[in-house]
């Protein structure tokens, strides 16, 4: 029985392999002390950072842009040059592991669970959509002691003391700021006295609509109606007809591309609204295409004002953007800078807490989180970052408003910087 003998040999060999594979070296005290232990990066192995962004589906432009920002940050790290060489910490390459979050709670769960499978993941950059983070990805990573740093979540709920996960941070602004700026623009610049809002129920849209409504009423305006819509329908004309009965001057609908396009077009057709406004979910040429250029003309869109970056504008214009354009073409969203910053604060924190043990690197998880929350006056691309205990690292933000002219976004017609408190 030649064959069976071969089988036996194979079996023995694999047993030996199992026995040998189990061995390992000692661990430093810090790791023993850390509630979640350490990530141990063996010699020659990379330091793995996860990304959990929306990279497929109709909102993929948002996530791909952030992913590009993260990749550029890894490139820039260490050698301070966009040269295609991956940055290193203590001789270990930095590697990004990309997952998709599908812009939904479900997608966020699935993606997060795939990432936590890899125990080498040190920290995660994500998510793009607040719905993928809130109560889902933040919890899954938090339970494993993995910090989640979002470059584009803006929902206030994520950093509310009641709902904040201890391992969650973000370099994107909190939408209480954006809502306040849009309200200020509407009441002071446009002189609108009444407004209605539409949101699609996502934490992002709802948070923004509510923040706007609160600030608008505070500024003396009237909110005639606040409704939410079902995504996936085509005909919102009866909802708009209904809203129009309240007679609002401004219609604010901070939603995403597809529905944003339809509402724009049908609101123009309806003709009852003097001003239309949306926010960064629609701040992409895709939305103009979806709405039709004629309809989009004159609509106001808010978003982080990249021309007023509190950080190094010169670096952004002359180094970052050209590097971005070269590899990824025109930016499709406005969060690449936030993503660049997110990676940088993570890498800085890793550098700070990592314990070198010969060629092996130990990264204690809780210490890493604490280092991230201790980020103070970090000179980022989007401004000076200081993280508070709720995970908001943008203490103030500059939000700009653009309009659409001849099917293209105009320069900023309004811009304001506001702090998180008040």
């Amino acid at each position, binding site marked *: 029985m030649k064959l069976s003998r071969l089988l036996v040999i194979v079996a023995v060999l694999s047993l030996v392999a199992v026995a040998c594979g189990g061995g390992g070296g000692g661990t430093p005290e810090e790791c023993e002390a850390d509630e979640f232990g350490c990530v141990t990066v063996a010699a020659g192995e990379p330091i793995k950072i996860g990304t959990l962004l929306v990279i497929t589906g109709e909102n993929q432009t948002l996530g791909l842009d952030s992913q590009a920002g993260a990749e550029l940050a890894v490139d820039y790290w260490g050698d301070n040059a966009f040269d295609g060489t991956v940055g290193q910490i203590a001789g270990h390459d930095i590697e990004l592991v990309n997952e998709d979050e599908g812009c939904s709670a479900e997608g966020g769960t699935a993606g997060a669970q795939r990432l936590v499978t890899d125990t080498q993941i040190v920290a995660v950059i994500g998510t793009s959509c607040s719905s993928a983070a809130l109560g889902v990805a933040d919890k899954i990573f938090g339970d494993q002691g993995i910090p989640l740093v979002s470059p584009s979540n803006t929902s206030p709920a994520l950093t509310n003391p009641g709902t904040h996960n201890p391992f969650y941070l973000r370099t994107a602004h909190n939408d209480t700021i954006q809502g306040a700026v849009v309200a200020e623009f509407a009441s002071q610049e446009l002189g609108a006295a009444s407004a209605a809002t539409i949101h699609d129920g996502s934490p992002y849209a709802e948070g923004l609509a509510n923040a706007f409504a609160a600030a608008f009423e505070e500024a003396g305006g009237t909110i005639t109606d606040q*409704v939410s819509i079902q995504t996936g329908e085509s005909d919102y004309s009866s909802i708009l007809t209904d809203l129009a009965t309240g007679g609002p001057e401004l219609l604010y609908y901070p939603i995403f591309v597809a529905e944003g396009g*339809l509402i724009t077009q049908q609101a123009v057709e309806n003709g009852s609204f003097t001003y239309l406004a949306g926010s960064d979910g629609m701040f992409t040429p895709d939305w103009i295409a979806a709405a*039709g250029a004629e309809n989009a003309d004159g609509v106001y869109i808010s978003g982080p004002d990249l021309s007023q970056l509190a950080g190094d504008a010169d670096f952004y214009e002359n180094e970052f953007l050209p590097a971005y354009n070269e590899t990824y073409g025109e930016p499709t969203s406005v969060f690449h800078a936030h993503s660049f910053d997110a990676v940088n604060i993570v890498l800085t924190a890793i550098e700070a807490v990592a314990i070198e043990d010969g060629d092996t690197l130990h990264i204690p998880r809780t210490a890493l989180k604490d280092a991230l929350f201790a980020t103070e006056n970090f000179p980022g691309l989007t401004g000076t970052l200081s993280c508070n205990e709720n995970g908001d690292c943008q203490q103030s933000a500059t939000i700009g408003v653009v309009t659409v002219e001849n099917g293209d976004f105009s320069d900023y017609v309004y811009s304001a910087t506001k702090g998180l408190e008040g």
Partner: protein
Amino acid sequence: MTTSARRSSLGIFSRLPVRRIVLIVLGVIITVAAIAGARATLATGQYSGRVWQDLFVQGLARGSVYALIALGYTLVYGILLIINFAHGEVFMAGAFTTLFLAGYLSSSGFMASQPVLSLLIMLAFSALVSMGVALLLERIAYRPLRGAPRLVPLITAIGASLFLQYTFRGFYGEQVRAYPNIPGLTGDWNIFGISIDRPRVVVIGAAILIWSSLYVFIERTKTGRAMRAVGEDREIASLMGIDVDRVIVITFAIGGALAGMAGILFILLFNQASFDMGFVPGLKAFTAAVLGGIGSITGAALGGLVLGLIEAVGPILFLSGAGIPSVGQLTSVVSFTILVLVLIFLPGGFLGAPEEKRA
């Protein structure tokens, strides 16, 4: 077991139509609630006649599109007794593909100089593309399954639906794309003193025209007669010398062409195309076809219009008075509730015969 024991085990329920009574009570409760809601809504005085009129026209317009798509379901169902679940994708295929033709017509300036002709060209092109997809579907997905249990073509149709959706996503991308505006189709027209949004007028008009042509075709031509004959009794139809396969192919072709034209009308209303644009209208049209009585051509038109009107008017009329927020979200709750009510009392929809037992 004694006779008396057997008899005693037969309660009063054996004879009383309890189920019917429950249903009638249910129907009455829902109807009363709807009326109360409508009264409350009207009592607020928030909605002027003008608003209702707008909603009505909006409903008619979307109902017209549903009706045309529903015709495709009904034609195929009438003949093969299968639900062509992929019909929404047939609709999408035409509308999405015509986008590129429209772009060309627009950029070449032809659309500006010949808007009506452009629209007709687009309708014809979209009809052709959809027809092609429908025929492929019939050939590849349905023909091998003739005579299989009914669930099998249903699953195939669902598979085909996904496959088509993602094929077009692969071809044209996942982004929503906007159609160029057709000159002359913005603004309102004044009809009988009522100003109506121009695209809606065109959509309603075109739908009526298309539906009537189909009706005449089915009722008056030899091929139409053959289609009806195959629908009633396939075997006897072949005995009359009718090539059943050919008639089925023609049916799919017509259904596809109608869906393609509906696609362009849909575009006139909503101006944008995407790979998943067919799913929701397809579902709605299917509902409309059942509501009107699946298998009936007039029923499809009626069902489409009624569904469109319910969707436009229903939520506001029945619900907003009850203080429910964002009634627009509840559109499908209202329409499906009405569908269930209709089917409880008219199991065959408005115009359909009750479904035959075991087809």
